[in-house]
């Protein structure tokens, strides 16, 4: 599996556009800045929705209104983050695919997607009975807390990707090497 990911990353890395994006100081920084600054839209909206469910923000506004009205800007933000995220991966595919932080981030993104699906399903099923309550029922609150927790860890992992503590080139040990997907010590930037 790790070899497959590595070969795919090398294939991307060999593309001229990948090198151009990586080596363009301004373009790379624009993409990275857009990725980071879009946090204000995507996570900003998401955190407000989660905080509303916990009764910590806008407690006297119906929960369904907050969730539905802020969903659109949130999804716009996530779309931009997704596109810029792919571009960032494309610019540095080998090192990124062999980053333990990137891998944790990807697993958590899947967990977030499942949590969001369940959260909306449960909310839509029952919201009419608690819509105007300051705090949502416990299982909705649990979903909101998991969302806050997962996304916070994703931000931490995203920040840690920039550091080289467990990079394959720094010989992180066998266990970490396997988790990070190091392949026979082969690394590229």
């Amino acid at each position, binding site marked *: 599996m790790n070899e497959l990911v590595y070969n795919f990353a090398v294939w991307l890395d060999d593309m001229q556009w990948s090198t151009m994006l990586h080596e363009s100081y301004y373009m790379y920084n624009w993409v990275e800045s857009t990725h980071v600054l879009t946090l204000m839209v995507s996570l900003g909206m998401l955190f407000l929705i989660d905080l509303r469910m916990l009764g*910590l923000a806008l407690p006297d506004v119906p929960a369904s209104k907050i969730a539905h009205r802020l969903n659109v800007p949130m999804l716009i933000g996530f779309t931009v983050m997704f596109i810029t995220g792919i571009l960032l991966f494309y610019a540095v595919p080998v090192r990124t695919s062999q980053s333990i932080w990137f891998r944790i981030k990807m697993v958590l993104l899947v967990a977030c997607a499942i949590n969001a699906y369940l959260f909306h399903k449960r909310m839509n099923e029952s919201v009419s009975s608690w819509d105007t309550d300051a705090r949502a029922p416990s299982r909705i609150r649990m979903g909101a807390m998991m969302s806050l927790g997962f996304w916070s860890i994703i931000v931490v992992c995203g920040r840690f990707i920039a550091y080289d503590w467990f990079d394959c080139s720094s010989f992180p040990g066998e266990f970490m090497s396997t988790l990070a997907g190091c392949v026979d010590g082969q690394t590229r930037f």
Partner: protein
Amino acid sequence: MPTFISEYSRTVGAAAVILLLLVFVYGGWMDSLYPGLLGIFEWLETTPFGYIGKTWGAAFAFVEAIHLIGLAVLGGCVIASDGRLLNLVLTDVPAQTVFDRTHKVFVWALVTLLATGVFMACGVATKIYYLPVYWFKMLALGAGMLFHFYVRKPLLGHDLSQLNPVVTKLVAIASILVWFMVAATGRWIGFSG
């Protein structure tokens, strides 16, 4: 008969303070003060925060991530309340309610940003001292806080139906721009030096 200045005294006052700061920093007046500030920045690096920030990369990176989370929450509050003033989001919720209820969260996010920002500044104090973009960010942050607490909050404390809609929309646009500038200049610090 109210004049423009008496009607918008806080706005005019805030604009004057920001203008004075700009003149102070970019008009050459700060040149005499600037060398004296180096000692403060060197001292910041010797504080426990500076020591931790310089020695433990993981701690610094973790605080950076908390800073980003604070930024996300602050951005969410700004977009929700200013977006409401611009009739872009939450249009079926009274603007006053959105502003009032997000203000508390905004303040907590700002406190988080300031606390983590001070920690991060201590770790790289002598680097940021020489970065023009850092000083620009401080100006933008000062302008943002002054604008938010001295102009925006008192203005939106009034009955919004009594306010000129153009004024409320201008306030919302100015607010989004100033906080975007704070965030963007912060990002730029990471690419500089």
